[in-house]
């Protein structure tokens, strides 16, 4: 991954109200343990990432938003490649353990804002899985 690499994040259908995504898209859940799963844009295209996520992993996604590695590091986030057996393009955006809820939200909103400014990389396809 380079500073310019795009990191693709899937958007769950319930995380869209109308056409507006929630900043929770870029907020790690408790299960994530402050490691936000993304696709490494150097390894797959946005369309391939969506195909993989919905068809291979069987998850739901209406489309893909993306942030750059540099944008993450500017906000104090680390990024790492994290290939998995069934998910070779897997990468993670790591939120520091010590961050408060408020700080996590601040950064998640900033990432959402940057991603929306960049525009949808794939979709959104309403009514799709």
């Amino acid at each position, binding site marked *: 991954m380079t500073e310019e690499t795009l990191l693709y994040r899937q958007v*769950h259908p*319930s*995380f869209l*109200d*109308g056409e*507006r995504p*929630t*900043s*929770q898209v870029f907020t790690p*859940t*408790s*299960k994530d343990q402050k490691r936000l799963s993304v696709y490494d844009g150097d390894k797959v295209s946005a369309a391939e990432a969506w195909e993989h996520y919905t068809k291979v992993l069987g*998850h*739901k996604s209406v489309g893909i938003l993306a942030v750059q590695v540099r944008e993450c590091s500017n*906000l104090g986030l680390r990024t790492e490649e994290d290939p998995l057996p069934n998910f070779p393009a897997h990468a993670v955006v790591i939120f520091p353990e010590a961050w408060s*809820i*408020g700080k996590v*939200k*601040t*950064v998640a*909103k*900033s990432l*959402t*804002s*940057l991603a929306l400014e960049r525009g949808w990389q794939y979709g959104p396809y309403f009514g799709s899985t």
Partner: protein
Amino acid sequence: MREIFLRLRFEGGEVGYGGLPLKMLSELATLERLLWGAAGELFRRENPNAKLPPQNTRLVLTQLGKGSTTAQIELDFTKDELFLPSAVEFLKRARKELLATIEEARIQAEKTTAFPTPLLRGFRRLGKSLGEVGQLHLESPDEPQVALLDAPTRNRLIEWAEGRQTTTSSALYGWICEIDERQRTFEIRLVNGKRLRGEFREEIEKQLIEALGGYHYGQLIRLDAVLGRDEKGRITSVKEVREAILLDRREPWSRLRELSKLPEGWLDGEGAPISSAAKRWVRGFLRRYYPPTLPPPYLYPTPQGGISLEWDIQPYMPSLEIDAMGQLGYWHALAPSNPDSSSEDRELSLNDPSQIKWLIERLRAYDRGDAFV
């Protein structure tokens, strides 16, 4: 039987040039409604438990005079001694009171007549075609009695009807529930449930029609209007609509219903269903506290079974995350361009009205753009 009831003479303005505008006919129909309404009311005052018998009585336009600037209305009725007191008698009393009321308004006296004041609202339509310079002379053959209706007189009659003390320019928020394109009138249901009627200009017709089309979807509209208010400051009428702005079409209720259907594990195996407590709180907040002047929040489920309310008030992106118990809320807002220096977060007790008030005030401040001033 038939007898002359009222003679009308039009002068000046649009009605004075060799023809009666057709729209004046609908105004004359208003005159008839006004007279019947007054006759009925006068009758009820003397006979509280009875209804005015109609006795096959009607008012008919029988003549249009030279150049169509004079008209005659006749009373057509069946004489029947069985019905006493008669509709004819009360219609004549209504006429007498009406003409006297118009005259009182014309000479700028106080209203002393028995004519039912609320019915004077009919003058919002009656005489409208006269414009600023036209006049309508009304003459009763019985007394004889005359009255002259012109624009200032008409305005005063309308003021009496509305008990208006003042007019103010204000913004009205509500839903358009009716439009009469021919009469160019509309009805708006305000957020407090009150309904008001008003007239509209061609320039805002499109917005009103669109708002009417979205009525069942909760399409909110803002009308910048001159409003009539009574002595207590309550809105009594819409005098003039200067601008109509369709507000954000989203309404949170259907979204809330949609979120209610999320099953266990909705977030790819993770994610609790939205709790009833969280839904109840959001519903109550939106119904009881949320000002219609603010943009409606976007609603999202949280994986813990709560609800996240988010606002697109740029550049702050404020949000309130409700826990599954519907008791604690986490408020957060920032300016994305400068996240370190311009963000705030706070935990709120959702059952504390003072904290709800604080929340609303913050939202207003963000909406105005002076949250960090």
